[in-house]
């Protein structure tokens, strides 16, 4: 039997446990690399897709805006109508309608009563000055006028002054407020 010396380094054989560890490490590296590659490709791809989408939308927006410009006259007419209607509504709601109250005041007038002054300057206030030679006709007129103001939605009637004049007549100043 011959025994020789091997001058080459003897290759150490890996144990089963070592083999398992190496294989596990390889797997970990492979999975990590795969995840990273997927993420990089996915992100770059998604960003590219979004940029394209943005460009498309921008050109679509430009087209729509230039289309809207062709309707400029129609749109300005509509805006003008809306503006005017808002302002007209304000004017109409703030208007006094003196003819309605005035007609009723004149209709309520007794023969002996003289209307010497009516003031209708605000929407919610009427000032009335009357003169009469007879106190009973003045009383009848005030009764009628109270009803008139109530019908017209006035809530307060204030008798400002009731005076007996030198000539024996009477004068009355009243204010009706809404």
């Amino acid at each position: 039997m011959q025994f020789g010396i091997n001058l080459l380094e003897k290759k150490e054989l890996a144990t089963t446990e070592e083999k398992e560890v190496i294989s596990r490490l390889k797997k970990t590296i492979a999975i990590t690399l795969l995840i990273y590659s997927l993420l990089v490709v996915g992100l770059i791809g998604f960003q590219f897709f979004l940029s394209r989408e943005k460009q498309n939308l921008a050109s679509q927006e430009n087209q729509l805006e230039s289309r809207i410009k062709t309707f400029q006259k129609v749109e300005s007419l509509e805006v003008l109508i809306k503006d005017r209607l808002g302002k007209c509504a304000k004017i109409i709601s703030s208007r006094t309608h003196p003819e309605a109250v005035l007609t009723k005041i004149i209709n309520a007038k007794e023969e002996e009563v003289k209307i010497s002054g009516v003031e209708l300057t605000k929407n919610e206030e009427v000032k009335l000055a009357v003169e009469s030679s007879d106190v009973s006709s003045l009383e009848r007129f005030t009764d009628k006028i109270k009803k008139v103001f109530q019908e017209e939605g006035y809530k307060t009637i204030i008798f400002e002054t009731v005076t007996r004049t030198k000539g024996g007549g009477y004068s009355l100043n009243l204010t009706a407020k809404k």
Partner: protein
Amino acid sequence: MKDYKKNLIKYHHLFLPAVLIVSLMIGWTFFLPRFGQIKGIYDSLQKERERVSKLQTKIQDLETLNEYELSEKSERLLTALPSQKNPVGMMMMIGQLAEENSLLVEELRVSPGEVATEAVEITEMEELVFKLTMSGDINQFLNFLKVANQSLPLVNLQIKDFDISGQSFSTDVTLVGYYSGLPKTLGKADAIVPKLTPEEEKLLNQLRGYNLYEAKTFESLPGGKPNPFTF
């Protein structure tokens, strides 16, 4: 090489945490800013999509509008509330109304002030006040008030010192006329087309029934930026 392998096997339990730390560092420096960029693009895309949808709706709305009909409506409304101060036109309207009702205008006072050109037109509503002293028949005067309140341009009438003597009267009348400049801008391209509410439609119909006293206007001097509302 042998040592490296040996070390790797020896410290294999540290490998996973090391990979995690490296992943986090790469993620922090590379992925995080990229996620931020993508989120920014995505958000702006969402906004643009909304804008495109608004623009499409606006075009659909605009297509339903009839230019002829709108011109007719706007003309009437510009008669109701003129865009420029027009004292002479208003005086003519008052004169015509008084004449139609056989009333005497004893005095008429107005302080028109500055008559604006289009370039300095006021978009807010302004008043032009006329002070009148009138006399005549009461019933005619009541009719005058009724007609004036159902006429265009819109006016507001106020009465002071109304004095009756038999069937005749004398009074001071304050007649307030209004004017307002045209709107200057249309707003944003994606702004919704303003639609008329049922109340506004009702008001428009009401104004259609009013008498027209179209006042003659003076040609205004051109100046400033062109106004899209000048037709």
